């Protein structure tokens, strides 16, 4: 047991990688493959809870891979990392259960499980690593595996495979450009400070900043990192790939992409800007706030004009990521805590909405909201669950989204950012409008679903598809009614982010050879 708790960070990365290999060999026996993978994810969720609990009680945990001290790759689990890992594994566990019934048998049995494992390994690795080049490597791992997953087929084929190819092509090209930019930034950073360990870079950058000898190109590197993480998180000028990719992916993968994968950009922003560039951060705050506001406006306005339900949800993701970046841009402990609360709530609600939209699409046989209608009688579960998610995203009181929006706007007003908060509140009304309009279009009015339209046989949501949605809906309600634990966790995390000295000490006071 002691061995287990000591090696938690590496286990969270190694188990998915190993099981992705095992899944390839188990191709011949699909039942075993499914059950084993679900069991593995159950274990991983428990490990993630143990990690968060250990970090919460015992402080930042540093794990050396090999014994090279700060020169080798180290894994660092602070509150932000371990919280994000828990969020990732929770959502991927539920998406996995959902996809057992949703994904077409052939896709599911051949490569789906191993790619899914690799995606989770990449996500966990990028959250846990303390080495900036290793972050790049894990970005590539999760990029390639997510491309493979976007192409997987659904049982009811509402998305043409040519659409999938086109979306994946755009996604892959833009992400590769992003990783090229990231490599340039990492190489320039290494040339400047001569180390790749993030804590070490932070010490050296702030030392040269205190001595007044900070070279000018550090600012350029910081801008490059804004491009990299902005590309991952799809903030305004770099968001064009997202509304193509997220709707064409099968719904459980859309849930993973929208729920967790775009949060990688947020995590990277928090890690890099509040650790490495914290001395030059005030210069970039206005840029981040401006981009966040532009993202909110573009996301909200574009979502209003959509007829495709998943495309509308994807644009809504863009808008919501803008709110998270708004909190980061304001840059105090309060606003960062608020944006972390927002991040968790958005991850849960949006993955739940994407899973629900999968059920709705399979029920109606189309993705066009205007060709659906009156489904409240024939699909009552999906109707109520979509309403819960829509209420949470648009911030109506009993749900978690209300707490998130309230905390964010309150923190913004306390920090005296009146105009950005006013704009954000104005466009939150847009969210309410498009979410409720979508719900009314699909579930009220004259009955118009696949049985009436006489096309493909509907795929009734089985228990495996209903359970994850119900669990996520319960989490949303609990986050709204009993938000204190999350708020306390977010507050502690934000304090760790704003004052990175404990992180630096924990990493650098290891035995250095």
């Amino acid at each position, binding site marked *: 047991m002691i061995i287990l708790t000591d090696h938690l960070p590496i286990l969270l990365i190694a188990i998915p990688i190993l099981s992705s290999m095992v899944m390839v060999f188990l191709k011949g026996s699909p039942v075993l493959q499914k059950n084993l993978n679900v069991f593995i994810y159950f274990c991983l969720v428990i490990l993630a809870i143990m990690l968060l609990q250990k970090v919460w009680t015992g402080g930042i945990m540093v794990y050396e891979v090999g014994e090279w001290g700060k020169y080798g790759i180290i894994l660092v689990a602070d509150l932000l990392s371990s919280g994000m890992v828990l969020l990732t594994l929770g959502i991927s566990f539920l998406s996995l259960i959902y996809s057992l019934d949703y994904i077409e048998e052939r896709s599911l049995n051949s490569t789906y499980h191993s790619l899914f494992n690799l995606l989770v390994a990449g996500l966990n690795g990028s959250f846990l690593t303390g080495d900036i080049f290793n972050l790049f490597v894990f970005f590539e791992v999760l990029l390639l595996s997510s491309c493979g997953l976007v192409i997987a087929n659904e049982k009811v084929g509402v998305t043409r495979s040519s659409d999938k190819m086109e979306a994946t092509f755009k996604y*892959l090209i833009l992400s590769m450009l992003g990783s*090229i930019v990231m490599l340039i930034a990492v190489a320039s950073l290494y040339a400047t400070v001569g180390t790749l360990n993030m804590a070490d870079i932070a010490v050296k950058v702030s030392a040269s900043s205190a001595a007044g000898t900070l070279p000018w190109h550090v600012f350029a590197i910081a801008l490059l990192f804004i491009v990299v993480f902005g590309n991952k998180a799809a903030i305004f000028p770099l968001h064009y790939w997202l509304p193509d990719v997220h709707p064409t992916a099968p719904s459980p993968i859309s849930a993973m992409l929208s729920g967790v994968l775009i949060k990688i950009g947020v995590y990277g922003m928090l890690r890099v800007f509040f650790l490495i560039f914290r001395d030059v951060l005030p210069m970039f705050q206005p840029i981040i706030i401006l981009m966040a506001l532009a993202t909110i406006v573009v996301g909200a306005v574009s979502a209003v004009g959509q007829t495709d339900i998943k495309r509308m949800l994807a644009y809504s993701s863009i808008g919501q990521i803008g709110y998270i970046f708004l909190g980061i841009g304001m840059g105090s402990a309060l606003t960062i805590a608020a944006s972390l609360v927002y991040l968790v709530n958005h991850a849960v609600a949006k993955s739940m909405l994407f899973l629900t939209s999968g059920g709705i699409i399979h029920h109606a046989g189309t993705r066009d909201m205007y060709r659906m209608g009156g489904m409240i009688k024939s699909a009552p579960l999906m109707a109520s669950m979509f309403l819960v998610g829509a209420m949470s995203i648009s911030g109506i009181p009993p749900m978690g989204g209300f707490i998130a929006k309230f905390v964010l706007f309150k923190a913004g007003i306390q920090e005296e950012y009146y105009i950005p908060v006013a704009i954000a509140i104005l466009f939150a009304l847009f969210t309410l409008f498009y979410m409720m309009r979508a719900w009314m279009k699909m579930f009220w009015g004259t009955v118009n679903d696949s049985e009436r339209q006489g096309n493909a046989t509907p795929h009734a949501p089985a228990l495996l598809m209903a359970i994850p949605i119900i669990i996520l809906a319960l989490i949303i309600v609990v986050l709204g009614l009993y938000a204190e634990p999350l708020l306390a966790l977010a507050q502690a995390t934000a304090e760790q982010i704003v004052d990175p000295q404990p992180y630096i000490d924990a990493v650098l006071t290891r035995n250095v050879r």
Partner: protein
Amino acid sequence: MNNTFLSLTIAILFGIGTFLILRRDIVKVIIGLGILSHAVNVLIVSVGIFDGTRVPILAGSYNEAETTGSVFNDNLAEDILSPVVQAGTHIDYVDPLVQALVLTAIVISLATTAFILILAYRIHEEYGTTDIRELRRLWG
């Protein structure tokens, strides 16, 4: 002088890559990405060239590190050669870390390029063209 040529080479590679990425043919875009990633690889390697006395691994002064035993010492009898040179010695050496980084980057770009080439082939099958202007069924 060498540095000038190296910088020029990297700059030209970046230029060619960017030019190709802006072409309208999918295959040209992919070739452009390949050239860009190799430009980045050359950039990373060029980061590791030192012509001074910067010690890559050692923090603090050499003597201090030697007394604390944190430095390898030459032991010719056992064929152990120290990777760290005396502070103050003028020597040209290459940082080994960046080469490890470049190896990783090359392998990753190989994998992504292979994937994207297969994707381009499938797109050609589906659309019957490699013209990027035809890939407009989804509007951003």
